């Protein structure tokens, strides 16, 4: 399990408006492309100096491929990154201001303290 890699996915998708749209429209394909092409890129290094060892496990793949943010929370993905990206993905589908954020809280309502550890 790699909380770091989950976070890296959320971080690199969120900062690129085109990838946000691509992930909204095709979560499974975007996840697979990202794991194959992007997961090992060190963000401050050139392509030839990528890492060689970073992969998702099946639980992580499934959560990302189905936009399953409660499972991302359970896996210890950083809640700020998850909230930020999923707000960008789905806020537009809600008429009420903060409608998405409140639905988000509701869908996590079965979690009690202590929350899953987010340390990487």
């Amino acid at each position, binding site marked *: 399990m790699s909380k770091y890699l989950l976070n890296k996915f959320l971080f690199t998708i969120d900062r690129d408006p085109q990838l946000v749209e691509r992930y909204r429209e095709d979560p499974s394909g975007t996840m697979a492309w990202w794991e194959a092409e992007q997961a090992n890129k060190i963000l401050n290094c050139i392509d030839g100096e990528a890492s060689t060892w970073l992969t998702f496990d099946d639980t992580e793949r499934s959560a990302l491929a189905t936009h399953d943010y409660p499972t991302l929370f359970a896996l210890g993905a950083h809640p*700020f990154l998850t909230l930020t990206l999923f707000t960008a993905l789905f806020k537009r589908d809600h008429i009420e201001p903060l409608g998405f954020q409140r639905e988000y809280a509701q869908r996590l309502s079965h979690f009690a303290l202590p929350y899953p550890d987010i340390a990487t």
Partner: protein
Amino acid sequence: MAELVAVIASTHHPFYYRASTAAGEERSPFADEWVRKVEAFRATLTKARPDVLVMVGADHFHQLWLDNMPQFLIGKAPFYDANFHNEEREFHLPKMLLTGQEDLSAHLLREGLDAGFDLAFSNELRIDHSITCPIITLRPEHDLPIVPVYTNIFAPPLPRPKRFVELGRTIRQLVQSWPSGQRVAVIGTGHLSLELGGPRQFGPHGPDPEFDHKAVEWISTGDIEGCLAEVTLDSLHAPGNATHGFMDFMLMMGVAGEGAKADYVDTYDLYHTMEAFFTWYPNGAAA
């Protein structure tokens, strides 16, 4: 030597900019009172007539990332571009350009290292809403040079609360030993109880009003000892999963000093989180 003319601590609420600039049907019922409170708070900085602002905040996974994460970082650059795409997207924050005070940055870095803080530095730093929100609330003209100080309140393992207080004390000493005739204000923003990306987010109030009440008491009375006796990295999970941002308030208590009663205190209970505003004048009111 430089003069520390004001110490200011507040929450940074990224929705303020939108709320304060919206008109007509878009304007929230709580906006007018919020603006009134922020403008009164702004006057406490204006009155101190600062030349330079030391700005304490925390990058929210914008430029700083988990492959190379500093605990405490000081910017040293002639300019700082500000705000990121996702802050424009979610909070409608404008792109900004701030000037840097490199001489004070260099002083804080050199003397901070010698004082036992292994400070990271950045010569090209794009700053985010933890610093631009207080610029928007306190100095919207953004005409003063800044020194950004970033803390890690976000990506564990974090420094412990005591370390934040100690850094605050050190920043105060270093500002006061800066060989310059300039008037310096130290401004830091953090959070009271706050939940982001968890089940308690975006409620009608902050997730833990009782913690907020205690926190305002600690800050406004300068009760560093009392605060340190209760607040730990573990305890901060209980009031809300983003409450570790409170440690930047503790840093500012360190700048203000043990037992230093704030000269100005105000709060505003809002949905999601409580706003809180504090100003100290180390040399007496607007000396």
